[in-house]
């Protein structure tokens, strides 16, 4: 029997279900194999939002649900040597480590060995020349908010080999959260490309939580998924050759079959022969996905190519304000009244900014922001229509003006309008660049605030 290592997933995004991890940990314990659990809490936008939080509150800027995520599992993980790896450090990995230490103390647990990964944050003054060099004139210094590079698995593996029970990271590539503990366990060399690629794709399958166990998959009548209200989060059994079997928490809903695994395997992937992570370039062209048991699917045949010489960084700029408002019309001639509301808004506000209009229930998704699809639609006889207007502007005051105009449709718009909702948020615009790897050294240290 080939040596194997289990990696479970406890969260697939910031704000994921906080009752998902405990059944995963319980299953890891029952299977009795060496194991780790990962928490993936960062989307592209999330991290920038955390950077802004940290500026206002230097003790925050890490995953706000951290306590709810870890409290149900911390004791069991420490007791059973299940390593916890999470990018819940977000913009403030040291802050997260301090918080976890305090949580362990509150739960009357022995002080855990917490490793903190650094080297991803490019938001400080010193990093600006580097970003300028890469982005040239498109680096808008005045509106620069923050930047983070995607770091890899190597330092996660080193920290675990050094005795870490919990590894707190900021921005690392999502699959690296899984590859790190697997590298540490199997002692893979950094140029063992096929193994690194196989375990990275296992990580890719795990990183969105329920998306590989029947979540984001169900289509009643055609793709039915049992007990979705209790969907189990995934566990990958990773083998010494880099292949894996995807399963899920015991006694849970959801399903793992070749359809769920294929959908997630190709999720957010472009060229299947070159899925680039900081650690390796993965090639799934000849990969095989096969059902090997109930809720058990094997992924094998992933090939790895040498890692690239650069790391990707996301750079965020202040992008002004986004606003949207909605109002509903029902009954006879509802659609004509909804269209009249759009017309009024266009005539009053269209001179200040471009407005996108949607008639929810008729056309609200498949058209572009220019509204060409909706304008082609002849007015119908829909009896239940919701108007949506959306716009962006550098000035918050202008967006506020638009939102007041939507609210004014209560009294000054077509007959029978109801259910006005308005919302606004700060926009962040993004640019990506590639930076030479040797300019972005990553490192880890064990947290100690004594």
């Amino acid at each position, binding site marked *: 029997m080939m040596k194997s290592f289990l990696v479970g997933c406890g969260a697939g995004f910031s704000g994921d279900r906080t009752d998902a991890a405990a059944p995963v940990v319980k299953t890891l314990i029952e299977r009795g194999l060496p194991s780790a659990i990962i928490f993936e809490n960062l989307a592209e936008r999330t991290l920038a939002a955390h950077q802004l939080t940290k500026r206002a509150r230097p003790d925050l800027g890490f995953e706000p649900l951290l306590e709810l995520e870890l409290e149900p599992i911390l004791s069991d993980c420490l007791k059973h040597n299940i390593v916890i790896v999470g990018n819940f450090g977000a913009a403030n990995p040291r802050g997260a480590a301090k918080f976890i230490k305090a949580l362990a103390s509150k739960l009357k647990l022995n002080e855990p060995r917490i490793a903190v990964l650094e080297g991803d944050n490019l938001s400080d003054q010193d990093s600006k020349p580097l970003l300028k060099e890469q982005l040239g004139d498109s680096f808008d210094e005045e509106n620069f908010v923050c930047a983070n590079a995607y770091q890899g698995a190597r330092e996660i593996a080193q920290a675990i080999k050094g005795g870490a029970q919990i590894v707190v990271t900021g921005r690392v590539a999502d699959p690296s959260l899984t590859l790190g503990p697997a590298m540490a366990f199997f002692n893979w060399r950094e140029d063992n490309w096929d193994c690194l690629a196989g375990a990275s794709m296992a990580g890719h399958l795990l990183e969105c939580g329920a998306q590989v166990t029947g979540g984001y998959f169900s289509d009643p009548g055609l793709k039915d998924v049992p007990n979705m209200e209790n969907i189990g989060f995934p566990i990958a059994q990773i083998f010494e050759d880099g292949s894996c079997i995807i399963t899920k928490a015991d006694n849970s809903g959801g399903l793992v079959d070749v359809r769920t695994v294929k959908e997630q395997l190709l999720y957010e992937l*472009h060229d*299947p022969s070159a899925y680039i992570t900081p650690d390796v370039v993965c090639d799934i062209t000849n990969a095989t996905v096969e059902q090997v048991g109930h809720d058990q699917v094997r992924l094998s045949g992933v090939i790895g190519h040498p890692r690239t010489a650069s790391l990707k960084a996301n750079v965020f700029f202040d992008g002004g304000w986004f606003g949207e408002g909605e109002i509903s019309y029902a009954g006879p001639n509802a659609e004509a009244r909804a269209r009249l509301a759009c017309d009024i808004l266009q005539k009053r506000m269209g001179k200040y900014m471009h407005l996108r209009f949607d008639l929810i229930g008729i056309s609200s998704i498949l058209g*572009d922001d220019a509204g060409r699809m909706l304008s082609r639609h002849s007015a119908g006889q829909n009896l239940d229509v919701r108007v949506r207007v959306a716009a962006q502007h550098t000035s918050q005051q202008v967006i506020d003006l638009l939102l007041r105009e939507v609210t004014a449709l209560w009294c000054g718009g077509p007959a029978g309008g109801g259910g006005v909702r308005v919302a606004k948020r700060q926009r962040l615009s993004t640019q990506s660049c590639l930076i030479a790897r040797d300019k972005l050294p990553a490192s880890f240290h064990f947290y100690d605030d004594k």
Partner: protein
Amino acid sequence: MTKEILLYEIAHARTGDKGNRSNISLIAYKPEHFQILVEQITEQKVLEHFADRKPTKVVRYLLPNLGAMNFVIDDVLDGGVNDTLNLDMHGKSLSFHLLSMKVMMPL
């Protein structure tokens, strides 16, 4: 003899996004239907099917082992998650728009 059906009846799909680029996987339920997808769901046809979202380029990658293909569609998201005014700023629902394409099935 052939019969026109919805792509939805023989394949499933999932959308992902990176910036202003969408990728949509298309996976045949049955291996024997993969060839139909290869012949009929071409880059050009997908470009036309998404015309209302103004894509500039479609690249199709084939994964015969998986009975699947991956469409990478450029500039289809009105700037992407941070820029678009669309309710579905990630373009997540585009997978089912792809599945609304028609295919001719041999009888």
